[in-house]
């Protein structure tokens, strides 16, 4: 069980990080632009008719640092909720020893 978890995490890190080292000259960006480029390729007459609401409000592109801030907030909210609930589950399990014994056959 422990081994599986560690292996899984290592594998995730490998898949995620290897490209960084292998592709030294790649941009690793353009997430949103890329789709737009293809749209231009296959449908050159199309004009986007709306802009992201926040960009309209501040009248320009969202600064990269601010964007990463928002992404961090999103991750933070999620991780906070998950760890809070997981923590409760873990503590609760300590109080339910007999539960654990009866269900050890799970896999």
């Amino acid at each position, binding site marked *: *069980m422990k*081994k*599986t*978890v560690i*292996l*899984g*995490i290592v*594998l*995730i890190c490998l*898949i*995620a990080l290897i*490209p*960084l080292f*292998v*592709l030294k*000259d*790649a*941009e690793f*960006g353009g*997430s*949103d632009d*890329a*789709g*737009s*480029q*293809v*749209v231009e*390729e*296959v*449908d050159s*007459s*199309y004009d*986007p*008719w*709306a*802009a*992201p*609401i*926040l*960009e309209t409000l501040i009248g320009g592109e*969202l600064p990269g640092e601010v*964007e990463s801030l928002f*992404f*961090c907030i*999103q*991750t933070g*909210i*999620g*991780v906070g*909720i*998950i760890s809070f*609930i*997981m923590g409760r*589950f873990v503590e609760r*399990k300590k109080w339910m020893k007999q*539960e654990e014994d009866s*269900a050890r*056959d*799970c*896999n």
Partner: protein
Amino acid sequence: MSKQEKRILALTSVCALTFGIAPRVNAMHIMEGYLPGGFCIAWGVLCLPFLAAGFFSIRKTLREHRNLITLLAMSGAFVFVISSLKIPTMFGSCSHMTGTGLGAILFGPTAVSILGLIVLLFQALLLAHGGLTTIGANTFSMAIAGPFVSWGIYLLCKKVRINRKVGIFLAAALGDLFTYCITALQLALAHHADVTMGEALVEFLAVFAPTQVPLAIIEGIITVLIVMGLETYAKPELRAIGFLKEAK
């Protein structure tokens, strides 16, 4: 179990390595303003029945088992975290996962549509990622089509008695992948003025699908790990939801 796990590892490594290294760009959700108005409305309307069903499904679940709100919150938070992580891929670009597989396996596909909508709203409003006009289309691909595939594959694997972890892995990974296939289809349906519809679809698929493969694998692994954690610590909830019937 370890044998099964080894098999997963072998399979995943093969998948990761066979897709060579070719710098390529990609996109995630459909950008603001990139679907004609008619398509925005059509996809939005198409989402409504699913969202309504999801709302009722969540209400029913919570009415029957009040304490399941913890698991539900966790599935939602999982989507939040997973879809905020942009991960570099072998194709020289970044993309992120959807994270909807977990909720679909636990609560059924319709419930996830609500969770997914919340995340998409957050990203559309604050992150200029996706968009308000395209939220219907994005909801359909990420919060409806993907979860339905995950759920179907999970049930299928359960039926043919494949190891549960393999089933969960496949469900999460393929659901993730399918989300992006649908996105490609949506874009191709709307944009094929210069080329034929099929060519446009191939073009968009080439942008979306290959980048997403390694990420789908990561998502599969993460989902399996989370479920393993839940199986260890949240047995009562999983039983209440019918996920761990046989373990009693």
